[in-house]
């Protein structure tokens, strides 16, 4: 680990060759190749992770294209003669059945919900990672009082039952607006990341290659962006997958309660809002399919997370 850029042995020389073939700058190319390429190779050997990646790819495809093919308009309600109280079970025309009440096509709801739910899951994670990285870097780099202060804030935030606070915040500030909901989830998703980044700073700051880099006059900025953050990359990516999964589930719950996204924009949570009142009618297909969509997404993300953890773990074999 003293100099990760120095090629060693057959694998390294192979990498050098590849880097040169790719016409890349030797130094830069090698650094990213040796770590990323190796991780990718291991990741490719992880069957569940590949399955997760495939599922997620399909879901993202549905989220992007689905609403174009099957547009949803809240104001469009079925013709009056079709309005009956009870929903209808899955059929050739509506494979996921129809909801009770407004007789909406569950398939259309799930397809349109995919866009919002995935958007909220991923973009709130992104906000969380950015905040967490900044806070963790400041704490780890500055140290002392600042570090102490920031970490106490993290303690405070972690002692709060987060979903609870998000629920209240969504109700008070959210206004049913997707972007605001994303921001609220993001603002409560950074604590774990900041601890990870900080501990990377603390452990790597003392390592030889950073000392050496500093000794030859490399600037702090360069050390942070070229050495420390790339090293923090793998734990961040792994815990990001957990954040995405958690936030998709969390948003679904908050929207289910009616405190999250307005029903004009379907999400996998708010389309279940009225499902409970239809229990005596036994309309099982209504909650079933949106729930399966959530489970599938979270499973896919968790599989990818597991794959990434193994891929980045130097002790695991390819």
């Amino acid at each position, binding site marked *: 680990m003293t100099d990760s850029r120095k090629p060693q042995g057959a694998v390294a020389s192979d990498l050098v060759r590849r880097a040169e073939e790719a016409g890349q700058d030797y130094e830069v190319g090698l650094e990213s190749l040796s770590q990323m390429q190796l991780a990718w190779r291991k990741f490719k050997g992880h069957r569940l992770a590949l399955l997760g990646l495939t599922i997620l790819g399909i879901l993202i495809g549905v989220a992007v294209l689905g609403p174009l093919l099957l547009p949803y308009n809240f104001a469009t309600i079925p013709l009056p003669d079709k309005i009956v109280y009870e929903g209808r079970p899955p059929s050739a025309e509506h494979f996921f059945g129809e909801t009770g009440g407004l007789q909406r096509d569950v398939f259309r709801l799930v397809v349109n919900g995919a866009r919002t739910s995935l958007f909220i899951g991923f973009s709130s994670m992104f906000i969380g990672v950015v905040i967490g990285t900044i806070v963790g870097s400041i704490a780890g780099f500055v140290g002392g009082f600042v570090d102490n202060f920031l970490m*106490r*804030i993290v*303690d*405070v*935030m*972690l*002692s*709060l*039952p*987060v*979903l*609870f*606070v998000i*629920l*209240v*915040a969504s*109700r*008070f*500030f959210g206004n049913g607006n997707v972007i605001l909901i994303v921001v609220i989830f993001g603002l409560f998703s950074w604590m774990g990341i900041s601890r990870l980044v900080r501990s990377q700073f603390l452990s790597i700051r003392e390592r030889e290659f950073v000392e050496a880099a500093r000794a030859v006059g490399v600037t702090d900025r360069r050390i942070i962006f070229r050495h420390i953050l790339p090293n923090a990359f793998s734990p961040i990516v792994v815990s990001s997958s957990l954040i995405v*999964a958690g936030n998709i*589930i969390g948003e*679904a*719950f908050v929207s*289910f*309660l009616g*405190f999250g996204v307005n029903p004009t924009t379907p999400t996998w949570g708010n389309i*279940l809002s009225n*499902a*409970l009142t239809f*229990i*005596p*009618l*036994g309309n*099982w297909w209504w*909650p*079933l399919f*949106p*729930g399966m969509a*959530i*489970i599938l997404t*979270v*499973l896919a993300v*968790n*599989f990818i997370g597991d794959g990434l953890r193994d891929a980045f773990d130097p002790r695991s074999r390819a």
Partner: protein
Amino acid sequence: MTKYIIRRMIQAIPVLFGITIVVYGILLAAPGGPTAKFNQNPRITEEIKEKFKKAWGLDQPIPVQYCRWMGFCNPENVGLQVFIGETGWPNFLPTPISGATNGVLHGDFGFSISSGELVNTRIVRAALPTLILAGVALFVWLVVAILMGVYAAIHRYSLFDQAATVFAYVGFAMPTFWLGIMLIFLFSGPGLNILPAGGMTETRLSPPFGSDEYWVYFGQKPLEALSDVGWHLILPVFTLVVVNIAGDSRFVRASMLEALNQDYVRTAKAKGLPGRTVTFKHALRNAMLPVVTNIGLEIPFLFTGAIVTETIFSWPGIGRLTIAATNQFDYPVLMGVLLISATLVVLANLLADVAYAVIDPRIKF
């Protein structure tokens, strides 16, 4: 030991203090403030709003409101008297010393905006159902997770182990509220209809839980009352524990496998101890060390899980109180609930640390 606990309590004070600021900040920063709920109501004039604010002390500057809520000061008084309690000691000291009774520090969370009752009354009323639900869930969670994890570790790669792995993945991915909904469909829907869909008691048979009449009924028919609650607990508890069991059974398994691989386990075998003793005395005791810490860290999820479960199953506890208070912008209740649950989380973490130290002789205070 006592010293250690006291030190940890003192360390928890700034965290708890921070929590009050965060909680207060979140609620007061809301656009429109506490009167936002009147915005849709055409009969409420600006005048009425002002009166409302004055009545609740919401016309004061925010720091003053905060200090009053906390019980640092007594804004009714004048001059420096503001900070002095009835006995002449500073207001923030405990009631027996300062004579002050206002504010969080003196156990007073004010009045509920929506019902006019004391926040304490509402919280205490809702606490018992939540404690019952969370307590039973915690017990089931720990017992099942540990048994499953240990069994899976001992019979690694067996059919049970593989089934437990699948369960762990799916259970971990399952939204709690959705599981609750599906279970109600399954067991209380028109098909099976064998378990109650919600509530804590059978309304046709017993008075509402917690009312005076209920306790009279309880005194008369304790067994029936208990079994009634137990019957209503089945689905909520199941719903609440699945995620935790899914995660922790894997954690216990990994920890147990690690313990089983240690040299001292080989020593125990070499001594001729029966397999049971080796596994359940030598390995399990060590495997429990990380598990205890992990459980301490997971206690907050029990709270959030309880909120979710109570909503789905109409369980008359803190979770439902929270949702109702959120809906009605009932600040004092929300602040009380948030602060109390955060305090419990801090205490649970402390308890986990103490428990860890008790079972690991290597840790000295």
